[in-house]
């Protein structure tokens, strides 16, 4: 481990980390934007789900390298060439989670919502999707972590397209362990950090979740008893 080298390249690591995050998170965002409407549609038209899920599986089965090579023809040497395959890979995780989440909505809740006068789309968005959030977040965590670890293959297109991956190639070509170790550590740290943030986000988004039954109840009662928390 060459600490001096590491200290000299802090800026490079910072830049690569920033680009790594961008290349990993954009696919998750796009994946979510595609999966949510597809998931809602699959729940509304159950016949649609098997082909959609099958399609997502087939895409996931495509070798990443082949996909990238194919894309170079159309999107060239750009961020899109790595963002598109990673986006497609998130679908296989996000769609089933969204569908399962929406299907986890208890039938009486759905019925009550309909009977209160929700239209179908409004009911899906205001009632069913929020209730599905724990499932969606579980999918989002896996998709995010997997995307962060996959970004490095982008380095095959060019040094600028693989985030921290560039250090793996450099280190390998120069038979120099330091950049490889730092790259791996940073990549893992990013994944863990992103995961932790998502867990936190889920807690904030679902204060109603049963899984935290004991704490919130105790808090409510303390507040009611006039004790500040």
């Amino acid at each position: 481990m060459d600490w001096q080298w590491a200290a000299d390249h802090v800026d490079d690591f910072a830049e690569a980390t920033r680009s790594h995050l961008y290349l990993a998170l954009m696919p998750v965002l796009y994946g979510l934007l595609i999966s949510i409407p597809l998931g809602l549609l699959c729940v509304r038209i159950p016949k649609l789900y098997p082909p959609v899920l099958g399609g997502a599986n087939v895409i996931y089965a495509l070798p990443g390298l082949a996909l990238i090579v194919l894309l170079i023809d159309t999107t060239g040497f750009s961020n899109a060439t790595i963002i598109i395959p990673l986006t497609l890979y998130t679908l296989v995780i996000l769609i089933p989670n969204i569908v399962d989440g929406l299907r986890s909505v208890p039938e009486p809740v759905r019925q009550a919502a309909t009977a209160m006068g929700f239209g179908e789309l409004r009911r899906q968005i205001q009632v069913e999707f929020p209730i599905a959030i724990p499932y969606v977040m579980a999918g989002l965590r896996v998709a995010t972590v997997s995307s962060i670890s996959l970004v490095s293959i982008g380095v095959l297109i060019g040094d600028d397209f693989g985030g921290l991956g560039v250090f793996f190639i450099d280190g390998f070509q120069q038979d120099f362990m330091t950049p490889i170790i730092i790259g791996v550590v940073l990549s893992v740290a990013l994944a863990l950090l992103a995961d932790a943030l998502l867990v936190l986000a889920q807690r904030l988004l679902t204060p109603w979740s049963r899984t935290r039954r004991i704490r919130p109840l105790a808090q409510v009662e303390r507040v009611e008893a006039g004790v500040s928390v």
Partner: protein
Amino acid sequence: MISFEHVTKRYPDGTVALDDLSLECPTGKTTVLVGTSGSGKTTAVRLINRMVEPTSGRILIDGTDVRSRPPEQLRRGIGYVIQQVGLFPHRTIADNIATVPYLLGWDKKKARAQAHELMERVGLDPAISGRYPYQLSGGQQQRVGVARALAADPPILLMDEPFSAVDPVVRSELQQEFMRLQADLDKTIVFVTHDVDEAIKLGDRVAVFRIGGHLVQVDTPERLLTAPADEFVERFLGYDRGFRRLSFIDAKSLPLSTPETLELTASAEQAKTVLGSGAPVLVVDDRRRPVGWLIRSRVARWPDQSALVAVGHTFRADADSVRAALDSAVLSPVGVAVGVDDEGVLTGAIAHDEIAEAIRPPSAEIGST
């Protein structure tokens, strides 16, 4: 008024949920649909808010076909309460209650204020308005369900077995609450239950359904108990319908007599004199409230109050039914029901054989059903 006109609901697999139903649910009254499972009563209420569409026939609300309005708009004017409550787990109690006001586009402040007012109305502490449904007991959740249905003050309320999933004590509380609310609100209520007692307790009119979606009889609870239309209804009402019918006869109609009483302060001598005839004597306090019975075999222990036999429960001579009076007589250790007024002061007593005499049908009715 809600009118069903020759409504039939047949599912694609051939099951008939409702068979040529014609029924009127009068405005401001509670119509209870009662029947075994599979008798179409739930289908009938769901036809009203178009959760189910009829195969043939029409459902009219005040003369207008329910299908003349878009379902969402129709439903916002019809409260709906179901057994499983179906509260939205991700919304606070206040927001759950304000669901329909929000859909109708009320401003948030007004909707919340309405939610708080309704919480008080259904017996919930507004302090819990910020909680989530999972933090409430089953009984509280059902109260929220009722408040949610009432939030936009709809003229019609559909209730599908709303109190079936809670324990008997809570159910009885909710039923009391329901009657109190309905006395205030005068909603047009269609209430589904499989529990005959509940139907009789809550309904202004009771419609009895039989498997296959046949309506067998619609009547007031009293008429239903007195004159069941056929053997099915009779069996459905249960073997104690004669006893239940007594709920509809005021205890006021009973000829109470003034029992022999003894003051708490009476001496042993006085007690012996009063008990001379052998019949039990009612001991009352200084305000003439019943304390207990003194019976002959125990008179020697008087004035020790442990000599007294408990009265059991008394009945309100001015407010209870004959059923309560008879129950009081049956449970009384000496076979005598003790009537009191609203302050617990003795107004009279009646033995169970005298009650039996009083409720014997006039000879003209003997032989008819």
